[in-house]
């Protein structure tokens, strides 16, 4: 890490600095591991690859949208519209990946389109997510309104649009599209496709920019916007980019929902707004911006999904499960808050 040591005490200091920088992420992975072990031990049924598969598929939408939320929060903003964007992309996908919608009331289901069609629609929707996010960022910049308010307003707009596309759950998608995340695996049965897709996206969309100017600019504007500006960063451009990324990841989340559920539901994404913020916080990203990474966020998404799964396995009533999950989130964040406070006091 630091090869040039000018004073004696540097070498020992490195460990502490490493712990400070990566401690939280490591902690989340440890937590995930503990939960996995607990999960394994809590069912008497033979534990197989199917379980790992379903976990990955279950967690994929949240992992995607949480990454996008993480990027926005790192840049010093927040995006409350991600949930409805997911719903919108979900219904758009379900509507246009089929050649005819069928009629749910008479019991005839949608006629699935081809795989090629599904892929084409996906790419268009990704572009849509990017542009919609960019537009949100642009509105935030130009109108000078607080980001919470703008994204709250966009939440309404996208939710309304989703309802306009599909008033009730319906539509569908190509079977092979669904198989992108479900059956079959890559390399080994223990490595679910969903996880591979997640990691590929992570590498392509985030690792490529994280240590270069685009990524550093995001951290900069989240850390201290005026210092970033004086450093010569195009602040509006960076902000718009952050929201465009959030839109893209929300679109990915919506597509993941479509692939996993095979259907479009205008309310499918509602719960993901809160959960994405929870995953981001649990993942070690500071809500003040400028600090944190997406690896922990992804792990946190898995942790949250796993908690729900474990509760279901244990036969806990779904509503108790919600209470427990919510309380867990609150507890985690409280502890996080305490940690920040202690750090502040000791001047660390």
């Amino acid at each position: 890490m630091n090869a040039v040591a000018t004073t004696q005490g540097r070498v020992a200091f490195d460990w502490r600095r490493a712990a400070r920088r990566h401690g939280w992420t490591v902690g989340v992975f440890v937590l995930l591991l503990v939960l996995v072990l607990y999960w394994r031990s809590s069912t008497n049924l033979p534990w197989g690859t199917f379980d790992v598969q379903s976990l990955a598929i279950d967690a994929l939408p949240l992992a995607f949208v949480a990454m996008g939320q993480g990027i926005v929060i790192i840049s010093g903003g927040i995006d409350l519209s991600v949930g409805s964007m997911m719903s919108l992309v979900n219904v758009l996908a379900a509507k246009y990946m089929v050649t005819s919608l069928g009629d749910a009331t008479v019991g005839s289901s949608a006629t699935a389109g081809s795989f090629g069609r599904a892929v084409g629609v996906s790419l268009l929707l990704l572009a849509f997510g990017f542009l919609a996010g960019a537009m949100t960022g642009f509105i935030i910049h130009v109108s000078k309104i607080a980001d919470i308010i703008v994204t709250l307003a966009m939440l309404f707009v996208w939710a309304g649009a989703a309802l306009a596309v599909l008033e009730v759950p319906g539509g569908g998608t190509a079977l092979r599209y669904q198989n992108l995340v479900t059956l079959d695996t890559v390399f080994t049965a223990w490595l679910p496709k969903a996880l591979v897709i997640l990691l590929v996206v992570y590498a392509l969309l985030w690792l490529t920019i994280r240590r270069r100017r685009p990524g550093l600019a995001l951290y900069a504007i989240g850390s201290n916007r005026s210092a970033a500006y004086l450093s010569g960063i195009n602040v509006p451009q960076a902000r718009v980019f952050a929201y465009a990324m959030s839109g893209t990841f929300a679109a990915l989340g919506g597509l993941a929902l479509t692939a996993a559920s095979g259907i479009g539901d205008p309310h499918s994404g509602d719960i993901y707004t809160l959960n994405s913020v929870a995953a981001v916080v649990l993942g070690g990203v500071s809500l003040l911006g400028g600090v944190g990474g997406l690896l922990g966020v992804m792990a946190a998404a898995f942790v949250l999904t796993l908690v729900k799964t474990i509760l279901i396995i244990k036969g806990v009533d779904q509503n108790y499960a919600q209470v427990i999950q919510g309380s867990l989130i609150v507890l985690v964040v409280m502890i996080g808050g305490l940690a920040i406070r202690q750090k502040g006091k000791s001047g660390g």
Partner: protein
Amino acid sequence: MSAVSTPRRLDVRGTVAANPAIVLTFVFIALFVATDIVNRAQSSEAFITGRQVSTTFLYAAILGLMAAGQTLVMLTGGVDLSVATTATASAFMISSFARDGTVVAILVALGVGLGIGLVNGTGVAIFRVNALIMTLGVSTVTLGALTVYSQKRFLAAAPDFVVRLGSERFLTYIPYDLLVWAPIAALIILGLRYSGFGRMIYAVGDNPVATRLAGVRNWQVLLAVYALCGLLSAAAGILLVGFNNAADLGIATPFLLPSVAAVVIGGTSIFGGVGGYAGTILGALILTLLDSLLTILDASQAVRQILYGLIVLVLAAIYARAAASD
């Protein structure tokens, strides 16, 4: 800044920002007229009738109370996303304790609201958790707990007194719930302006570092504000169950985002330190009226949602511009 300055031209935007209440009153009246016109067009009936006006105020009282707590919280730079579930919890308490007497039911309902508010306040003030997350989390927990609760306990209809408060009028046109809303509103407006607590709310919202150096223990102010918000939401819930006569889990959900919207429209900054309740009252009235208008227009959920979003955007933009150029 310097001694040399050009004479001030009529500063429209500045006036709007400083006195949002005036502009909002105009908007409110204009909206009433618009609704009247539309209603006549649709059903040949006037809308500006005594009955309709009083109904608008009746509905608005519930939103107004929830938005009151929200105003206080947002003045300190936070936000409370649990106001709806707190109101729901209070509604449930009324229903479930109705058999034990009206007074007991009301006390329990208010107590639960206060308790939830204290939990929120503890998280935000003492554990320094971000308000958005804390209140969202508490709201999730409350909802889950209520779901379990509703399965386990018998829920009666609301007591007569509560029903009267929530849905009836006296002197033909004056809703009883105004007897709850109006004094509370007056207390809040006067309190924010003329009490030490009010000053501290603005101060902590404006610069908590400075207040600390001035000797304020910020956690006290924040805890009190969130507790008050819980109490006010509980009051809203009581009126709500009186109006509906029964409690169900979704009873208050349609009020959550409007409670934030009403505060924004009313001119309170989300960063805290600036604003007040008078604007929020008008915001609540305007939103309630807007809802009626949309119902008359038979607007679909989709259209309502989109329109809602655009309105919040436009109004917030006007305030932001005014504040920036100030």
